[in-house]
């Protein structure tokens, strides 16, 4: 299976572990990644202030990726995922806008010829690679590790857009973690925002949201939190120390990417999965996972 991988800006400039771990892991499942070099920003940053500009930017990506033969676009970032999904939805329901955008694209010599499938990493592991395959990797091994799942808002919301899971009560990430032999449980902060969208406009509020997410999750006794989104990873992992210090506490919640966790089970080494970039206290949980 060939998939075009749309990395998005934030992964490239801040969270290279997201791309590194995903590319390493999907090769094990016979997925051939295509990594286009000349894509632009998905336009998410302008979504609120210049909606049509952001739609145009996304449409440009769709048109550009049309030139590669692939069975879908794997988006690594929740923001990009929402933009691609929403743009397709908006353009389908507004033919006039679609024609205007196509006209501008044709000036550049590209066009939207077909509508690709947009794939979220959770969807990739749950529905394409499949739970049974993941169970085989785990080989019936059970870990005494309780995992908190974090989907990130834009993976599921707004709930009016078609989604790969129930926006109010998703379960696919739990299914994945359980297939891999870990324990999961529902917790009230599960669908809370990581705060990243407020980083530019209200940084203090962003940090406060991240704090209530991390501290709220930690009090339920989880040993590890997993996510897929580079922005969520930034807030919950990279900035965890800064966030906790703001409120006079120590970092307490190990955070990993879903692809990193699967990679460890596949026997990939920590460097290949860029685990050395994780800044949350994953050393607390890593030995238990590596003990096969």
């Amino acid at each position, binding site marked *: 299976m060939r998939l075009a991988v749309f990395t998005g800006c934030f992964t490239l400039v801040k969270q290279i572990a997201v791309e590194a771990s995903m590319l390493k892991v999907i090769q094990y499942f016979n997925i051939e990644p295509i990594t286009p070099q000349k894509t632009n920003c998905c336009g998410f940053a302008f979504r609120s202030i210049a909606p049509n500009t952001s739609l145009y930017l996304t449409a440009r990506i769709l048109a550009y990726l049309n030139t590669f033969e692939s069975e879908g676009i794997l988006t690594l970032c929740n923001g990009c995922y929402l933009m691609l999904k929403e743009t397709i939805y908006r353009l389908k329901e507004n033919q006039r806008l679609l024609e205007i955008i196509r006209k501008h694209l044709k000036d550049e010599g590209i066009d939207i010829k077909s509508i690709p499938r947009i794939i979220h990493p959770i969807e990739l592991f749950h529905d394409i690679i499949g739970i049974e395959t993941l169970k085989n990797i785990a080989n019936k091994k059970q870990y005494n590790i309780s995992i908190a799942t974090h989907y990130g808002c834009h993976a599921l919301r707004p709930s009016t857009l078609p989604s790969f899971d129930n926006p*109010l*009560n998703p379960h696919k990430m739990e299914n994945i973690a359980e297939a891999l032999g870990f324990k999961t449980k529902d917790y*009230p902060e599960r669908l809370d925002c990581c705060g990243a969208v407020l980083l530019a406009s209200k940084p203090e509020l962003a940090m406060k949201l991240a704090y209530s997410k991390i501290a709220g999750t930690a009090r339920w006794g989880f040993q590890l939190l997993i996510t897929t989104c580079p922005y969520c990873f930034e807030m919950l992992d990279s900035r965890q120390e800064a966030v906790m210090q703001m409120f006079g506490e120590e970092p307490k919640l190990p955070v990993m990417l879903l692809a990193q966790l699967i990679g460890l089970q596949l026997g990939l080494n920590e460097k290949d999965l860029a685990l050395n970039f994780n800044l949350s206290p994953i050393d607390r949980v890593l030995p238990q996972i590596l003990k096969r």
Partner: protein
Amino acid sequence: MNILDSSTKTAVFICHCGTNIGGVIDISKIIENIKNIPSIAVAQDHRFLCSTDGIETMINSIKTSNADRVVVAACSFRTHEPLFQEALHRAGLNPYLLELVNIRELCSWVHENERDRATEKALKMIRAAIMKIQDNQPLKRIRLPVTPAALVIGGGIAGIRAALDIAEAGFTVYLVEKEPSIGGNMAKLDKTFPTLDCSICILGPLMNIVAHHPNIKLYTYSEVISINGRVGDFSVKILKKPRYVREDLCRGCLICIAKCPSKTVDEFNMGLSHRKAIYVPFPQAVPRIPVIDTASCLYFQKGICRACEKLCPANAIDFNQKEEVVEIKVGAIVVATGFEEYNISQVYEYSYGRYPNIVTGLQLERLASSYGPTEGRLIAPGLNREPRRIAIINCVGSRDERHLPYCCRVGCMASLKHSWYIKHLMPEAEVFIFADEVRASGKGFEEFYRRVRLIPGVYIVKSKASEVRGNPDGTLTIKAFDPAISSEIAITVDLVVLEAGIVASRGTESIKNLLKLGALNSGGFLIELHPKLNPVETAVDGVYICGAVSGPKDIPDTVAQASAAASKVISLLSRGYIETQPYSAIVDESRCSGCGVCSSVCEYSAIKIVKKKERSVAVVDEALCKGCGACVGSCPSRAIEIANLKLNQIDAMVAEILR
């Protein structure tokens, strides 16, 4: 038939209905047009044809013009056909020589903004009706006898009230209840709002009268499995599930229950406690005869135990009891199958079922009840101490487009009543009601609202709660936006009560299918014949509905409806006969090939294929035929048609409209 040389004389009356029709359609233009049709004896308009003056004018005109058939262009036959038919009768004409054209609902109301085209359409409709009526025949209604007995389905307060009213009038009533006892949801309530009288204290006496009334035959632990026939003559099959306890021998000592070793979840207490495998649902149950639940009985599951059988002093336990089908005949049916709480674990944000210490309104009723799981003590199941702070959230699932779009009509008052319970049991407790509005429109409701909100320690937050979150210590945090201070608030409590939305009870859909009642309202409720004028009738003659089966209702409204349904039944049964509508299907035997397609599409089983002179032909039972016309469309030989809507009449209408 060509109306230009017709020998018939048709009178046409057009109603303005004030401005409803006259304000859109140019009636004088229509009169001018149709006056030129030779068969027209008179063409008149009137501001309000259904007024006394309108009717009298109509009768006079028919008489003086010697018209022999009448077209009325006005409103819906549903509301006005009987009135105009009566006018024809008084003018000396057969009432079925009337054609009512609905130029209001089907024309002026829907084409308000295109008057010229509306006039054109109304003219076509009226001209088509004139064409059609040329071939109308005088029809006669048939009188059929009525079986002087009634079936009431559902033994809650609605069914109990309806059954008692009908029985008091001297008719036999069969009351069928699927649970082991009658009483329904009202038996689960501790008190009733706004008067706070003890629910079982006012319901219990009625339950006992039902049990011993000479005219009431009570079938508990039974279900209706088939209904056939028509108004006045229904035959009904009732399935009596085996209790494994002989009703004729059991003395109600309940030793069997005390000795039964097997336990399972208690449905009557809404899952908050356990009951034995042999049980009566609650102390006041009617009849006071236990039932063995085979799913949890050790004998039925493992073939051991039989303690109840050994210890019963009356030898009433009978493990060999089989289910039994009883067949009865009734003239009328009342459906009162009531409501249940919406499955609120689907309202994910309120966390029902995800964290302990969250109960529904009905569960709180059981906790507060003296014969409930805690004998009237309020506990928080996951906390091991009395709750001190309690939150009540209104409209859970109700008024929510994702779940139930309608108002449950009892939640607001129930939340006030529940606050009163809590303050009554624990005067020091603090109660927070989250309600974006409190609807207190019933009799005595506003006074009760004032009384409760003045109790110190009862706080009403005028806001819809956004989320309920569990905490590791077993407490719960409610998040809401409080518009009074324009800020998000979070309140941590020990117990959360969710006032759940109301849906029709689980059995409603199968009853609907048995009775062929057509569609259901959102929430699964049965639809009344007319929301204002026929609130207890249904689309099927002789079938009446009352109580929460037609929509959420409080007890006073339910009881009023039950008596209304009963009075409809009594008036039908005491008259003793019904008159059928005469629009039944007619078979042209010379064309009929006896293929049987018509009888297979007939929803009312009114058509049979019989042998006549060595040929198979279709025969219609006029008492069962509703004149729906399904057979007409299905017949490949054009051999079956409806009286006064014959195929040549339809052809004439179509030809006129396409002219």
